[in-house]
């Protein structure tokens, strides 16, 4: 609304004429950051690719394409995708309700949305298992309908919904609360129905944030281990996730096999990270346009 930027104090142009560095500590802080990053993250990660490159092509292929591993990819990808889609729908709903409506307990619920970020995954895993086990509160109810959740692929889905829940809510919420009410009023005065306004005015504005949140939830679900292994039952070919396959190989002292699967997972997560970064850049540019 009042964000007309004065070019003289625009931070982007401000930096350009101060060619000489006034502030101290550039080489120290940058040097330390790069050193620490290399020691903790980059060099150890490089170990995966170095170890993988020592395998022959057929060794690598056997490790990453054995039927049990392929079944784990299918489950991990399928469940992660469904969990992220589920969270996209309910994430927008939760964000909408929290931003637009007043009801008792709203602030408490808002604070508890981040629980999956703060609750250790192992705790989430055993709690969900206790709930959905055949004798649990929810499991016994669902059992009457013939639905088994714990120790089936459905259990994996439930755990992944839990850990991915905050992402969409937290990316969409700020965009919704910044939304200019004039846009909706204009649409309404032109005769649009409430649903049409949501579909054609609000949804396009929150779309970049929604897709970013979806991608973040999906990426998180792909690598998730702690919350899943308790509820999954870990039945070979049925309910084993890919991170568990790495652990299984390690327990058999098959370091080459574990590393090969890990390298496949790493390449996928790097690709997702690049995608998410460009999504966030897109999201940031469209939201700032939407605000003016």
């Amino acid at each position: 609304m009042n964000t007309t930027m004065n070019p003289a104090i625009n931070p982007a142009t401000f930096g350009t004429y101060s060619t000489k560095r006034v502030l101290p500590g550039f080489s120290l802080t940058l040097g330390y950051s790069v050193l620490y990053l290399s020691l903790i993250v980059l060099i150890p990660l490089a170990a995966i690719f170095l170890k993988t490159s020592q395998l022959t092509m057929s060794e690598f292929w056997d490790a990453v394409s054995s039927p049990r591993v392929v079944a784990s990819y299918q489950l991990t990808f399928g469940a992660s995708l469904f969990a992220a889609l589920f969270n996209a729908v309910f994430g927008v709903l939760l964000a909408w309700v929290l931003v637009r409506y007043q009801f008792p307990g709203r602030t408490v619920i808002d604070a508890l949305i981040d629980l999956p970020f703060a609750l250790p995954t192992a705790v989430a895993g055993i709690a969900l298992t206790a709930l959905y086990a055949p004798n649990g509160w929810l499991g016994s109810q669902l059992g009457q309908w013939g639905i088994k959740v714990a120790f089936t692929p459905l259990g994996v889905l439930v755990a992944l919904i839990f850990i991915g829940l905050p992402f969409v809510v937290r990316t969409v919420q700020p965009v919704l609360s910044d939304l200019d009410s004039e846009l909706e009023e204009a649409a309404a005065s032109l005769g649009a129905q409430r649903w049409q306004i949501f579909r054609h005015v609000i949804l396009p504005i929150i779309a970049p944030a929604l897709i970013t949140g979806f991608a973040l939830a999906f990426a998180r679900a792909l690598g998730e281990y702690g919350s899943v292994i308790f509820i999954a039952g870990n039945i070979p070919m049925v309910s084993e996730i890919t991170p568990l396959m790495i652990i299984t190989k390690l327990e058999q002292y098959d370091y080459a096999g574990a590393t090969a699967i890990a390298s496949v997972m790493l390449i996928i997560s790097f690709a997702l990270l690049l995608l998410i970064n460009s999504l966030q850049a897109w999201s940031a540019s469209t939201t700032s346009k939407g605000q003016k």
Partner: protein
Amino acid sequence: MSAAYILANPSINNVRIATRESNVIRVTLIALALTFFTLFLLLPLIAVFSEALRKGWEVYLAAISEAEALAAMKLTLIAAFIAVPLNLVFGVSAAWAISKFEFRGKHFLITLIDLPFSVSPVVAGLIYVLVFGAHGWFGSWLSDHDIKIIFAIPGIVLATIFVTFPFIARELIPLMQAQGKEEEEAAVVLGARGWQVFWHVTLPNIKWGLLYGVILCNARAMGEFGAVSVVSGHIRGLTNTLPLHVEILYNEYQFAAAFSVASLLALLALITLIIKAWVEHQAKANRLTEGTFAINRIGITNNEPYVGQRSKA
């Protein structure tokens, strides 16, 4: 905001109806959201505490005061006490370099800092096994010198540092970028030296974001499971952190004990969320008084608190 405006302007009363949902839809949406919230968030949380107390307080207290549980608590605290300060120093240092200076490859560096978030915890543990394990790069050298890293405390600390690596940097980078460098430059022009600038100018501006990052980093450090599980070797009383202790008890069908120890971690999570909400509130209040000045001056007016936006990097 808009509702108040519309209520004050009765002439546009028809707009008020058109930009709001009917009561039926409103109640349905709230009910749906609350059901989802209860099923997926509230019930698991309640389940932890109710399962923990299922066999009464005596079993509960025995489970959390047993020697192995205490050893696990100690190890969890040690790992967090080393990992959090190290990542704090890194976070401040990286945010200073990135927000106060222009250099090539800055965006690439930010992407690299985010890397540990997108790596599976299991892979994070595996990389240290490959470097320091018996068959790893330094494996034979370490065993010659009788140094144990994998299946010992240093491995647990390293894995914890890795998974919590980006937390503080990620909070500080967007915050310090938004604040710019004018105030620091003014301080330097007035004769302040490096540390003085940081302590008296930068730190007061970033304290809430810093605290926020530290809390989240600490919660993850104490709760990490996958990465620590790979490097720990599960030696009871020696290399078990609290989450690993929960797993062992659970797999031994000692459910009440497992949930008792788990309830400590759940309490930690709740405390984290309370402090987080308080910090967000403080940051918002701060911005409404002195903070807004610095931020508005450089042309950024956006209505949310600056903490808690993990997507702004």
